[in-house]
């Protein structure tokens, strides 16, 4: 990696992609710093994959600029559009794209051979890459004889083998089973740290995004909905869409109460009549403000808590045992709220309990 340069590894500015009359990506801008892992998160059809493919050079955008390591890869105004093979990137595909007619070794060696590596150096680099993913023993296997997880690892080794500075991932784990996915998540993260590679990662899986990213860009219908660190995204969703998509949240609509609170605090009367305090995070409430309350931030107890703000007596409607957590549905101001907490206390249906939440976990959302 080039030391001493402060250029972000990837700069995307006002990128737009249209297919005929359909706009896949409306003006999107973001930057990925060197050594950072940025994840594009969103439901299918939100334009995240198109964006990634545009960065890779596999998709021709209709507007904007893309710079990688300071080099302009695409510039609509200047008519620059470098082909994918000239961008010097690397990518892991959703389908792995393992070439079935080659051995594992040949698959991994491909990028190196393109770069005119040969002989001992080539061998060493391939084995180093295979070591990273614990696949050295399979070097001579035919690619068509591998299991899904093994193909995944080979795809990863292939992408890393020629020491690229920027790695692109297109939902690389979506074809794996849950357990393997959880393992690979950690491995991928470690690998990325070890190689200090810049990564642009696309997924629709929240956990994956939260676990692996330095920063997350949530996309919706071709536009960026919110970007920030996983904690920011999780704790302070900007819109109802992000709150809902990024983990389970209770959304509460109401009206602002004329109540003087401290700096950054707001009081809202929910539609059912309950009053709650929350944080504004500098956002200005609209005429019908909404708040996001994460299910895990709500607390249900048999005894009323000591503080008096944001405490309501509620009736337990249903309790579902989920293992580590219990999901409890409670009646609250004419509607239902979902609470998730550890199963330390048990609740029976129909009993009354006390629901509470810290005001800093009641996040005022921006009006849509």
């Amino acid at each position, binding site marked *: *990696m*080039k030391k001493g340069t402060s250029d972000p590894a990837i700069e995307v500015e006002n990128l737009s992609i249209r297919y005929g009359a359909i706009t896949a990506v409306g003006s999107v801008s973001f930057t990925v710093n060197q050594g950072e892992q940025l994840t594009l998160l969103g439901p299918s059809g939100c334009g995240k994959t198109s964006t990634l493919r545009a960065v*890779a*050079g*596999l998709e*021709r955008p209709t507007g904007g600029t893309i710079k990688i*390591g300071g080099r302009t890869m695409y510039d609509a105004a200047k008519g620059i559009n470098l*082909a*994918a*093979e*000239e*961008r*010097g*990137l*690397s*990518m892991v*595909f*959703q*389908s*792995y*794209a*393992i*070439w*079935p*007619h080659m051995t594992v070794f040949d698959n991994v060696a*491909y*990028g190196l051979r*393109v*770069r*005119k*590596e040969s002989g001992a150096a080539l061998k060493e680099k391939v084995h180093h890459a295979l070591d990273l993913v614990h696949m050295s023993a399979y070097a001579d296997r035919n*690619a*068509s*004889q*591998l299991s*899904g997880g093994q*193909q995944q690892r080979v*795809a990863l080794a*292939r992408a890393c083998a*020629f*020491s*690229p*500075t920027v790695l*692109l991932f297109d939902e690389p784990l979506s*074809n794996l089973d849950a357990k393997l996915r959880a393992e690979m998540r950690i491995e991928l993260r470690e690998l990325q740290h070890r*190689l*200090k590679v810049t990564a642009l990662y696309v997924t629709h899986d929240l956990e994956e995004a939260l676990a692996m990213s330095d920063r997350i860009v949530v996309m919706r219908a071709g536009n960026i909905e919110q970007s920030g660190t996983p904690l920011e995204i999780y704790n302070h969703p900007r819109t109802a869409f992000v709150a809902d998509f990024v983990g389970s949240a209770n959304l509460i609509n109401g009206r602002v109460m004329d109540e003087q609170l401290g700096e950054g605090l707001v009081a809202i009367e929910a539609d059912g009549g309950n009053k709650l305090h929350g944080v504004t995070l500098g956002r200005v409430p609209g005429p019908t403000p909404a708040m996001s309350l994460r299910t895990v931030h709500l607390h249900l107890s048999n005894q009323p808590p000591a503080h008096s703000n944001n405490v309501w007596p509620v009736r337990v409607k249903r309790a579902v045992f989920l293992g580590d957590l219990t999901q409890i549905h409670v009646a609250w101001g004419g509607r239902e709220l979902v609470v998730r907490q550890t199963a330390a206390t048990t609740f029976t249906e129909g009993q009354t309990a006390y629901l509470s939440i810290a005001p800093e976990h009641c996040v005022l959302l921006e009006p849509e």
Partner: protein
Amino acid sequence: MDTSAQHPPSATGQMISLQSAIMAAVIVVVAAFVLYPIYYLLQASLDVGVADVRPPTAYGFDNFAALPGYSTIMWNTLVVTFVATIMALIFGFLTAWILTRTNVPFQRTLEQLMAVPYYVTPLLGALAWSFLGAPESGFINQLWRRFGGEGALIDITSPMGIAWVMALFEGSVAFVMIGAVMKSMDPSLEEASQVIGASRWRTMLRVTLPLVAPGVLGAAIFVFAEMLGSFSAALVLGTPARFYVITTAIYQLVSQYPPRMPLAAAMGVSLFAVMFLMLYFYRRITSRRSYVTISGKAFRPRVMDVGWLRWVLFAVCVTYLLLSVFLPIATLVFASVQKLAVAFPAPENFTLDNFRQALSLNAVRSAMGNSIILGLLTATIGVILTGLLSWMIQRSRLPGRGVLEYIVMFPQAVPRLVFAFGMMWAWLVFPIPIYGTFWVLLIAYLTVFLPLGVRTISSVIMQLDRSLDECGQVCGASWGYRLTSITMPLLRPGLLAAWLLIFVASVRELGASILLMGPNSKVMTPAIVEAWFSSSSELTAAMALIQTIVIGLAMLIFLSITRRAARLEG
């Protein structure tokens, strides 16, 4: 991490232009090969001036206006072609499925034999079946009467009989095309269906068939067009029953004096409409869905265990081969050693004269060499050309690539007998003097077999997951490098199938060769047809057998070379 490895070699800029250069060259070549003769063909179809004066002295639509007079023939043609196409597809799909997806016994041997009907030329097939099934003299009918039957058991000269013979031999093209597609299909797609309890039969109909639909449709279009332009079967079998199709009618029009080329050209041109309609539907159907079955998720080629049914399926294949290869060839052998072929020959009727005569014909010997060399060249260049073309049509973002696909189908739409005139006029006035040489035949063959190659290779490309190529691209590989390291090896079965089909098609080519052969560039099949016209069916049988043996040997050599090459690589 060092910076030197960051970017691929800077030569990539040049490689991009190499790609565009090659693509441009392919377009120019295809346009010249196809549109240049088409121009002359259109000109001829509008020629209402003094006969046989070029360029035409007057233009008009009289030739097209005369076409309704031939509506019976057009209708005959469509009926026979349609029925034959359906039959050929059933033969082709069934045998392809059996041989690629099930554990039928002797699979390898059967598969190799399946290509044989295609190089048993249609003429040979028609001849053999007319020996077998002519209402009066057919061996089968003679046998039938000897054992007390009345009249004729089968009549191969009926429209259904003609369709049967055409389907029998075209079925193996369908087999090769559909088989190439099936071979590269992920078996887990079928297994998924079986696991949820669907029967094998249901799996074949509901999963296999739709998945290979583009391949089947591609084959259907090709086979339909091929039969629309097929000549031999209708000539040998149809004329005795006073049954004419477009090609036999055209043959009469151009071989009589005064030759009625303009009318024949109009007939040929009007067939464009039929072909384009079919192609339009094909494109509509295939563009609506994705047919990617070769994905980066590598699969193990596996076959279905069909239990005792395997012997039934084996019998199906053997029956097909019996009807399309063994029986016709045995018949021809039997006929070729007689002076006058009959079912119950007297001992003095046997002779080897036919073979002696066939081998002594100088023309035949040199023509055979030319045919083989032309076949090799056409197949090799043709695979490269049609491979690039298919890639451009299926994978490039080239504007107007849809148009390219239509252009490519032109030569298939017109019977070669007519298209040959277009090519003759075109290459005659071409400034570089290639007319009358070996090279004009090569160009003609490359032109008329464009559709064959494109159909075969396109079906396989369609199944290739794009990310396999894209991954190579992101790895920094240039277009040419990717082509040789990824695309071509993955397309190997398709390319091989295309090579064999084109090779055989070239060697058995008749319609275009008759007109374009020069004194130093004689080829084989016209000589055989000549023999049929001017000497005897028995001598023709002998010549056709010799041709079949030579083609067979050439293919065996080619296959063993490619197999050895594959083994060296692998």
